[in-house]
Each structure stands twice: as C-alpha cells, then as structure tokens.
C-alpha cells in the first residue's frame, strides 16, 4: 500500500519529479528506485527479453528411468503458457543439476536394500540464451517398481526474470519445500500401501509354492530331488528372501523421521493433520507390533493377493506409475493446490513482489496503527523460523553486498576434484559418475534386481548427459548437506559402466547441439555425432515410448520437430503478442504507443529493462522506531516476508487488457451493467481461504469505489461518515446492488480491532443498537411489506447513530461534511482508472491519516495537563490547535482523526487477555438529505 507499481511509471513525468524535490527526502526504505531509463522513454515493463514463454510457470519434470528427463505438467496447465519454450529441453537441464541424487541400493555392509530419506535440493539455474531462469527443487519419490525404489522428480519455477528468481529465492524455497513435503508425505503413504500389497502377494505366493512343494514331496518318493523340485525350492527361498526384504522396506518407510516434520513449522496438510498423526502413531506401532498392522489392513480389505511369478515382467514392458499414482490422491491434489498458489503468488513483476514485501515489513513495524485499515491477520502469522533464519542472513548480507551473488550464504561446495566450484558459475555435476557409482551396489543385489534393469539404467545414464556451458548454477541452499552428500558419493568407486553403449535409446535424447557442450570428462561411447544433428531442435518424441501414459496425461507436446522454421515464425509472432500483453500493465503511461525497441537479441540493459529492481527490505533502519521502539516491534522484522497471500494482479496475460478496457467503458455507464464485468474473472478460483482481503477483493473493491465516487456526488459525506465511525447503512431492494456498494465503501472503513472489518454486507431483519456497535457499514434490505416497515421503524428510531444511503432512490442522509481530506481521497475527477491503483491510492492517504492519528494519540500534552494546576480548557485549546495548525485539519476532518485516535487508544490499552469492549461513540449532530 505504501508504494504502487504504477508509481514507477509516473516517475518519468517531470512535474511530478519537481514536486518530489520540493518535499523533504523520503527515508531510503520508503523510496522506490527511480526508473533508470526514464529519460529514454522506455517502458519499464518492456522486458520481453528473449524468453519464449509469456509468463512465469511451474514445471514438474521427472527423470524417468525409461525415457530420461521428461516434463510432466505445467502450472498453470495451459499450453499457451509455455509457448514455444522447449519444455523437454528445459527438463533435461533442470534434471541434470540434481545434487541430491543419492539412490537406494544395497549399501556395502548391509544385507537388505536401504531407503534413504533424502533431503530435497534447491538450485537456481539460468539459461540466458533461452531467457529462462528457474528455481529448481529436486525431490525423490519412492516407487516399488522403480530402480532402486526411487524416482527423481523436480519442480521448477520458471521465469524470464532473473532477479525475481534470485531475490525471491528464500520465499520460493520455503514455498516449494512445503509443496514437496506434502507430496512426499503422500508418496510415503502410497509407498507403504504398495509394500503392504506386495507383501500380501508374496505371502500368498509363498503359501502356494509351499503347497506345491509339499505335493511334490509326497508324490516324489524316489529319494532324490528332481530338478523341478529344486527349482521350486529355490523359488520358495527367493520369495522368502523377498518377503524379508519387503518387510524391512516397510519398516524403513514407516520409521520415517516424523519428528523432522514436527520441528519445521509448516504443516502443508493441516486438514488431515489428525489423520496423519493417527497414521504416524499407527506407524510407530506397526514397526513393533503385529495387531496394529492388521488394524491397518482392515481399511483396505478389498485387496486380494495375487500370485507373483518368479520372474517379473521385462522392465520395458512395464508401465511406470504416474505421479498421481505415486502419491496419495489427497496429498497430490493438496500439492497441486499449493503449486497453483505459488504460481499465483510469484507471477507478475518482481517490482510488485518487492514493493509488497517492503510495505508488509513496514506495516508490521507500525504495530500500533496498522490494524486500522489493513488486514493484519496475515502479519500475525509467524514465519517459519527455520526458513527465515537464512533469509535474514541474506538480507543483512545484502546490506553489505547489495547483491545476492556476492553474499557468502548460498554456495555450492563440492569436494569432488573434477567439480569446479566458483561463485558465479558452478558447472553442473556429472550425472554419469553418480550413476556409475551406483553400479557396484546394484550388481550385488542380483537376486532382487534383475539383470534387465541394468540395461536400461545404462541407457538413462547416457541420456542424462548435459553441459555446463549455458546452464549456470547460480546458487543452492544447502551447502552443508550438499557437501556431505557429495563426499559420500565421491568415496564410491568410480568405474566406467561395463554395459555402456548397449542401448541407443538414451543417446538419442541428447538435445540441442548449440547450447550443450559435452563434458570432456565424460568418456561415454553414447555420444555419437549423428545424434546431435538428428535431434535439433528438440526431439524427444521420436522415442517409441515417449508418449507413455505419464507424459500423455497432462503434458502434450505440441511441437513437431520437423517444422522448425514454422516454429520460429510462431515464436516471433508470439513475441509481438507478448509485447502487447506485458505493456498493458503500463497502460496509463502515455508513452505506450511509442515504438518499442528492438526486442530481438539485444542484451537486457539496452532493452530498457529495470536492472535494479527494489532491493528486499533491509532491517537496518533503527531510527524509524524512535522512542516507541519498544512496543513497535519486539521480535524484529524478518527481511523477506512471506508473500503467500499475494495474488498478483500484474500478470502478463490478456486479461488485463480486456479488463482495463472494460473499466474505461463502464466508467460512465450504469452501475448494474458494469457489475457483470467486474464479476467475470478468468482465474477460476481465488483460493484464499485464509486471507479474506485478497488482492482480487481489493481490486474489485477499488473498482466499485471508483464507480461510486464518480456516480454519486454525495460520496464525500458518505465516506466521512465511515471514517468518523458513524455507521453507514446502504438501503436497497436488490441484494446485488447493495452488496456492491458495501464492497465499494468497505475500503474506507477503519477496523475496530485486529479482527475482520466491521462490515455486514446484507441484513434483512430490523437493526438494533448492538448492530451499530458491531458494524460500521451495513447493507440493509428494503422490503415493501409490513415486516419491512419494522425494519424502517428501527432505522428511523436509531437515525441519530447512522447515515443512510438509499441505493434505490439514490439519496443520502447524513451529517454535513466540510473538510478537505475526503476530497483528496475520493476525487470524482480522478485520473485513476484501475481498481487496484485506486485502492492503493486510498490506502496511501489512509496511511497518512493513520500517522496523523498516531501523532495525535501519543502526544501526552494534547490530552493531559502539563502541570497539576493547568486548567482543562488550556489542554483543550492546545489539542485543537494541534489538530488545526500542526496537522492541518479543517472542520470535520478533526473528528475523523479523533475517532481514529480513540480506536488507537482502545487498541493500545486493551489487555491482552480480553477483547476490546465494543463501544459506540456518537455525536448529536443534525443530518441532512443529499440527492443526486
């Protein structure tokens, strides 16, 4: 609310700059950096760069053991989002920087396969050529049928804006960790279920085999065993072994360190928390006692065990589980919801995100006044300590270095000799070695893992080769854990794969000749030159199983590798479209129609892109806190606040174009007709259960408010009523109209406490004095019936406490307003056209008002005598002088500040245990009737 993105665009205008100069300079933390290329007439939103996608999106990819890296789904799930951007290629890249990849197998010394509870790794990588920058979050899911029981996945937040990824790293990391944790929990659940089923199968098989052996034994009295019998006995033995192994696995998966989850503050699956805990408790029991296990079985009674063939099907025949199948369905949808939320949170301009974070941080400091006009519920939520510790470190570093890259916190240190680690550029890890290092382990478990598995393993290994040239790994979070892991990996013998080159499947997957540099350290036979040529620009669907179920489920590659030229054309066209859509943000800027600079391949700096977006808020300004520092904030402010509820409106979609044009059209049209336009919203659901005052609501309210002040000449006294704490009743027959007016006016209602706004959208019963105590803005139904008369009787009875806005006859009955404040707040000739902009305008003026109220409230001598003997009158005089001269308030404006001051006092003196006693303050002032 303190600064709006729109403000940036205006900094070009000279007269505004002059005005700014005349005023004392703002403290640094309040200032928005001026747009550096303003003089060139460039548009700050012209950042199209060279990216081939129109907006940020989230990509989920898998390193499939069958086909190598493949994209699974994008969020939003819309083919238009990624445009001509090559998801296959990018999947390959992001999957190839996985540092965690410690796979499961038989560790040297252990008899059974061991599950590793691998921590996720978080990497930032950029591909300047593609214009894509990504936060990449790697995770592993368990799959009984997969090699080593693990399936590597990754979720990537892909944006064209490098700064966004870098500056929002902590936030992204926190959010993605939550989503990942949720997904993994669901996966563990599914995995345990799978194991249970498998165990049943094995058990059943064993019984069958046992019976057969017995029969054979009986039938056979020759004294020696037939080969058949020996075979059976072997089979039986291997089944027995398999059972033990699976039981062990089940034990392992159930002994997942849940305490780890409890330590961390996030619980992504709150709704099922109880159930989960029950399960967790159950799981603990299961590891020790049998009855509990049977209990768990009871709720999956439908499963009938199958006979397991001694030799399982060939690996290539079997179908890998889809992501959905890998995860408990509840958790899967939960994860998707979270990812959608992340996408909504982080899309849009980084400037918006940062200003929002700054204003949040500042708001949090203003703990005495912030409740008045802000929704402070989100400020109260405690940021997870664990994640923000790092964040604070970062922001403090930023004070010195001003640049994330220079900060010492996130660095990738890899101890392998062949890995170069430098600050700017960390060459990607060579998958080959890790993969190879698995081999000795794998070969030990022949009885369990069939030889065939190894074949395709090799194929994958070859497929995973990628280069470090254009992929710059810019930073990872877990340097410490990464270190230990790579050390352990390094200790494994590095041996070239004996089966290398046996399959050509993977080698065909090497892609994009121009941007991949084959690592010379990798002695792979699979890198046959023709593969490079054949695969330009990005062809993975040549592979026979490329479109298996998993790929086809959500992700449908639209591109045909043959018509590369066509694609280029398309991409050019899309570039143009992109320009339009991104520019619509700055639509109010008169320079919109200027020819845009050549957007082709120029470096960013010449494109007129904001190179220095606002830095994240730094907690360095102690002076701000002044003498009230003690109560302003006791627990410090974390630098990066969680912008979880932020639903950025500044998406670079076509929606804003249509919206803003609608806005303009409907400005002068009637209220009802414009209603439809505001209601329509392309985004399916705001999904903000926790945050009532979502961005969308703000925008809507702002639009409605704009319309209100343009349509009603008596908007000023109405707003004055709200600001001075006099309940305003919107009376009307039609619910929709009344509610719309109430929404519009709600942005002017000061909160009485930290709870929800005192706004009641629709009431049908007669009002009572208690209602005026509780609500400051009420939508009331007008009924033409005897019952309705009661409603009106009550209204006329309590008319001294309320202002009444009659939506039907367009009249207003309320006290006179002669102040100046509201006219600045609600100027019917305002040039502001967008709802969200107007909302911010209102918020900034209200913040000003808050600071006046704060000053007034906390000046001792304005309320209490300086000396014992001082008469009351002189205090009153002093108070009025202060209000009039110091604060520059006129007439009724004084009452507004006085009312806000009372609210501040009430809030401050409120005892923590008990809520504020709701009290109704009023004045005996005459009301007047306003008509259009």
């Amino acid at each position, binding site marked *: 609310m303190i600064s709006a993105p729109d403000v940036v665009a205006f900094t070009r205008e000279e007269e505004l700059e002059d005005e700014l100069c005349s005023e004392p300079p703002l403290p640094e933390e309040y200032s928005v950096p001026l747009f550096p290329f303003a003089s060139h007439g460039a548009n700050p939103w012209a950042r199209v760069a060279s990216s081939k996608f129109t907006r940020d999106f989230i990509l989920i990819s898998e390193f499939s053991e069958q086909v190598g890296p493949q994209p699974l789904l994008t969020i939003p799930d819309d083919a238009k989002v990624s445009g001509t951007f090559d998801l296959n290629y990018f999947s390959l890249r992001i999957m190839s920087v996985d540092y965690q990849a410690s796979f499961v197998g038989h560790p040297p010394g252990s008899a059974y396969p061991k599950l590793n509870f691998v921590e996720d790794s978080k990497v930032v990588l950029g591909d300047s050529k593609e214009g894509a920058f990504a936060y990449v979050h790697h995770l592993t899911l368990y799959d009984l049928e997969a090699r080593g029981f693990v399936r590597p996945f990754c979720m990537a937040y892909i944006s064209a804006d490098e700064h966004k990824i870098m500056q929002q790293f902590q936030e992204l990391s926190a959010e993605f960790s939550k989503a990942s944790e949720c997904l993994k929990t669901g996966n563990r659940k599914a995995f345990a279920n799978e194991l249970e089923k498998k165990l049943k199968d094995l058990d059943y098989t064993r019984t069958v085999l046992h019976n057969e052996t017995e029969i054979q034994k009986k039938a056979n009295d020759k004294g020696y065993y037939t080969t058949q019998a020996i075979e059976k006995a072997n089979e039986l033995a291997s089944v027995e072994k398999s059972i033990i192994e699976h039981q062990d696995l089940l034990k392992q998966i159930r002994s997942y360190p849940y305490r780890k989850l409890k330590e961390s503050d996030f619980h992504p699956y709150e709704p099922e928390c109880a159930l989960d805990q029950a399960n967790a408790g159950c799981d603990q029991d299961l590891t020790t006692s049998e009855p509990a296990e049977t209990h768990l079985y009871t709720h999956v009674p439908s499963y009938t065990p199958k006979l397991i063939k001694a030799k399982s099907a060939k690996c290539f025949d079997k179908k890998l589980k889809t992501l959905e199948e890998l995860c408990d369905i509840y958790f899967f949808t939960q994860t998707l919801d979270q990812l959608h939320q992340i996408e909504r949170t982080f899309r849009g301009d980084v400037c918006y995100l940062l200003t929002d974070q700054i204003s949040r941080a500042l708001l949090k400091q203003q703990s005495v006044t912030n409740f008045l006009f802000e929704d402070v519920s989100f400020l109260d939520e405690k940021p997870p300590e664990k994640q923000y510790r790092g964040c604070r470190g970062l922001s403090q570093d930023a004070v010195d270095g001003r640049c994330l890259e220079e900060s010492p916190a996130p660095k990738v240190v890899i101890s392998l000799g062949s890995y170069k680690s430098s600050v700017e550029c960390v060459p990607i890890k060579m998958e080959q070695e890790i993969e190879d290092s698995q081999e000795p382990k794998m070969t030990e478990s022949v009885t369990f893992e069939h030889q065939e598995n190894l074949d395709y393993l090799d194929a994958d290994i070859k497929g995973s080769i990628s280069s470090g040239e254009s992929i710059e790994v810019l930073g990872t979070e877990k340097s410490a854990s990464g270190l230990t892991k790579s050390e352990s990996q390094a200790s494994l013998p590095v041996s070239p794969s004996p089966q290398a080159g046996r399959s050509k499947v993977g080698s065909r997957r090497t892609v994009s000749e121009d941007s991949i540099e084959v690592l010379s350290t990798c002695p792979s036979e699979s890198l046959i030159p023709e593969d490079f040529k054949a695969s330009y620009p990005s062809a993975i669907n040549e592979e026979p199983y490329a479109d298996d179920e998993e790929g086809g489920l959500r992700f449908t590659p639209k591109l045909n590798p043959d018509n590369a030229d066509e694609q280029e054309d398309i991409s050019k066209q899309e570039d143009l479209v992109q320009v339009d859509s991104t520019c619509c943000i700055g639509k109010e800027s008169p320079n919109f129609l200027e020819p845009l600079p050549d957007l082709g391949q120029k470096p960013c700096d010449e494109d007129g892109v904001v190179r220095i977006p606002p830095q994240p808020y730094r907690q360095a300004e102690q002076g701000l806190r002044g003498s009230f520092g*003690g109560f302003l904030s006791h627990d410090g402010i974390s630098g990066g606040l969680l912008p979880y509820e932020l639903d950025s409106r500044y998406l670079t979609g076509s929606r804003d174009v249509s919206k803003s044009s609608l806005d303009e059209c409907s400005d002068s049209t009637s209220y009802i007709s414009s209603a439809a336009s505001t209601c329509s919203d392309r985004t399916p659901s705001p999904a903000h259960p926790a945050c009532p005052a979502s961005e969308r609501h703000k925008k809507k309210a702002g639009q409605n408010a704009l319309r209100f002040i343009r349509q009603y000449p008596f908007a000023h006294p109405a707003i004055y009523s709200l600001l001075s704490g006099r309940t305003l009743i919107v009376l009307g027959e039609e619910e929709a109209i009344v509610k719309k007016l109430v929404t519009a006016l709600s942005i002017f209602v000061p909160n009485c406490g930290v709870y929800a706004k005192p706004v009641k959208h629709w009431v049908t019963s007669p009002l009572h004095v208690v209602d005026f105590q509780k609500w400051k803005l009420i939508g009331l139904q007008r009924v033409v019936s005897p019952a309705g008369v009661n409603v009106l009787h009550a*209204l*006329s*009875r309590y008319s001294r406490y309320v202002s009444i806005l009659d939506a039907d006859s367009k009249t207003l009955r309320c006290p006179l307003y002669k102040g100046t404040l509201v006219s600045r707040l609600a100027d019917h000739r305002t040039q502001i056209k967008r709802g969200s902009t107007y909302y911010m305008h209102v918020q900034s003026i209200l913040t000003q008002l808050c600071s006046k109220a704060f000053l007034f409230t906390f000046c001792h001598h304005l309320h209490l005598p300086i000396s014992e003997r001082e008469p009351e009158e002189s205090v009153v005089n002093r108070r009025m002088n202060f209000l009039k001269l110091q604060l520059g308030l006129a007439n009724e404006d004084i009452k507004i500040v006085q009312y806000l001051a009372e609210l501040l006092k009430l809030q401050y003196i409120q005892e923590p245990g008990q809520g504020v006693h709701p009290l109704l303050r009023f004045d005996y002032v005459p009301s007047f009737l306003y008509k259009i």
Partner: protein
Amino acid sequence: MLRWLIGGGREPQGLAEKSSVQTIGEEQIQNPYTELLVLKGHQDIVRFLVQIDDFRFASAGDDGIIFLWNAQTGEKLLELHGHTHKITAIAPFSSSDASEEKKHLILTASADRTVIVWDCTSGRQVQRVSCFHSTVKCLTVLQRLDVWLSGGSDLCVWNRKLDLLCKTSHLTDAGISAMVELPKNCVAAAVGKELIIFRLIASNDGSEGWNVLEVKRLIDHQDNILSLVNVNDLTFVTGSHVGELIVWDALDWTKQACECNFSDSSVHPDVQPEIKLSQSPNETSVQHLTSDEECVFAAVGKGIYVYNLQMKRVIACQRSAHDSSVLHIEKLPNRQLISCSEDGSVRIWELREKQQLPAEPVPTGFFNMWGFGRANKQANQAAKKMQENTPTYFLDLVGDLIGHSSAVQMFLYFGELGLATCSADHLIILWKEGERESKLRSLTLFQKLAQNGDLQLK
C-alpha cells in the same frame, strides 16, 4: 424520517406531528452522553438495577439471574444463579462492622418464594430463606436497627443472620407493594388502597428481639397506592393509581397536602384547571415518585410533574414527556431530571425558571428540514398557554437517549461514571460521557506507556 424512508411524500400529517410529545432533534449540545456500551447477559426483561458501591451495580429481572457489573468498564463481574423464578425485589445490604472490612451483600426476593443473601465479592450465596407463604414483593433494610423487612402477604422482620424476629398476621392476599422507613422505628407499608404504619418495638426480654405492631391505617387513597417515597425526616409522599398525591407528616401520619388534579375529578377546581389529562386512570397513575428537599417529582402517566412542598402546588409539568408511561424518574444534583418510559427512551430534563426562558428550542434536526418541526411549535404553544398562570418554572428537554428497543424499566445514575439503563429488550446500556472517557483512555494509555518503559528514548 420514517416517511422519507418508506418513500412517501411529505404530507403535513407526519407521524411526529400527531403526538404532542416534545422532541429535541438530533443536535443536543447539552447531552453529555456520547458513548454507549451495551451489556448483554440477561435473557428476559431486566427490571432492577441497584448500586452496590462506587463502581459496581447489580441487575436483575425476569430470568431470575443477578448480574454484577463494573460501571466504568462495563465488564461483567459476577453472575449469580439461584432463583428459579423472576426476581421481585432487590436491596443492597452492606454491613459495616467495625472489626471487619465493609462487606457488600445483596438481598434478592423472587417469585419462587425465596430470599437469598449474596456476597458481592465472591458471588456466593450467603444464606437462603424459603419459608415464605407468598412472594416477597418488597425488601427494606433498616440499617439503623440492623434488621431487614420483607413484605409480601405479611410483614416479616429479620436480622442479619436471617433469623425471623417477628412477623405480622396475614394482611391481604395482594400483599405489601411498597415500604418506606419512617422515624421512630416506624415503617409505612402500602397495602392496596391502605397505608399501614407499623412500629418495631424492642422485645422486653432483652436480646435483639423485636416485635412489630400495627399503629395506624390510613385510608385516604381512592385507589391502589403505587408509589411511596421519603422526602425528609418529617414528610413522606404517596401516589395512587388514580393520580392522587398525598403528602404525609412522617411523625404523626397526618395528611399535609393532597394533589389530585392530575385526574379530571376536579376536587379542587380552583387549582390549575389547565392541567388536565385524559380520563383514563392509567394516564394519571402515579408510577414513580422521587424528591429532593424542595420538590417532589412525580411520574404521572406519560407526564412529569414537579410539586413544590412549600408552595403546595405543582410548579412545573410536562404533560406528555414521553410517548408512553413514564416508569422511573430521578432527580440529578444539577437541577436535571431523568425519566425513562415504556416507549424505550430516556430523557433528560432541566428545571428552569420562567424568567430566563431561553430562546425557543430550535430543533435543527431532520424534522425541521422537512417541515416536521411544527410538532414542536405546537408543544411550545401549549407551553405558552400554560405560562399565563402556571408556575415560574418549566421542564426543558435537554437530551434524549435512544438505544433500547423496548420499555426502559429503570435506570441508575452513577454520576461521572454515567448512566445505566435496563430494559425489556434484555439489555442494559451504559451511557457514558464521551469526553471524559476519551480523557480517561488517554490517561490509561500514557500510564501503560510508562509502565512498558516505552517513553524512554532508546
């Protein structure tokens, strides 16, 4: 206002115009109450408010629950459950034993034929008496004798320990409706139309025994006596349902004066013939009486009358002070008078001398704007008519408090702390002086700042 809301035209026969009740409009400069607190708790009509000490009061009503409130903050202090029926009488009963600190008790009588003594600090039932044959309708504490009386179909005298000291024989089925303490250990009790004087006589056998003796029966009232109030040590006043007001000598129980002209029976046709009300006895029943040293203030029907004891006549009146019966009336120290009524409003009046008749009250409110102000003109014309030979005083409406949606049963004036009103809408409203409250909050705020150490520069 209503008409405007309904959307009709502005016909001259507005609702407001029909009634001759004086209205004040929305601008009330002299009305100090600009803040209100709604106290919720009761589930039925709240009938009684009683002050316990400087900042606490108790409320009771038809739901049988007694609540104790903080008059400053509006905080609910205690909730006393014990009665099963509605409460019929309540009286504070504070003991001031020299040995122990002051102990606040309250007595409550209920339709369940019990009387309970409550401790106001702990909220405990101290004692409970349930040997009554009928509902106790009034309770009177004689602090001087350290006994209390309960009045129902008979009169009982109790001591602090709740021992029954003595009782009268069965009086009537209707029972005693009001009691007042008189000098010389006497008590006046209103029983139907009769006023019975009882005297308490210390029993001969020493020990704190008392005997109660009926001394005199006064049968001057034509109808049931509704109100009974002490003026000073020498006089007390009674009012009846048909609008008789009789001033009695407290020592020899003789009639000093009688005012019956509230009704049209015209016993004294020579006295103020213009003060005539409609014929219905309900309109003239003396609902409540209060007094200061000079005057008796009577709530008669919808009106308020001020009777001067020395002049022995009504010196000022407001025939229709409210839209409906006035239920309670109280004199404030600053020549102001507060009345509450069945119409749900509380009004503040000021007794002013005629000579300094201020400019005609100018209603600047909404009604004026709409031409509804004529109602006031009528009222004023009526007042002018009275001027000629009525008294030198008149009652001026200073402000009204509108908050309750139903009859305001009673109110309690707490001085600076404000005014508590209770009503049939189950609510109690605490009316506060906004200016004072604002200042108090500032004071608290700076105290808290100092306490938190936030005032020091850091």
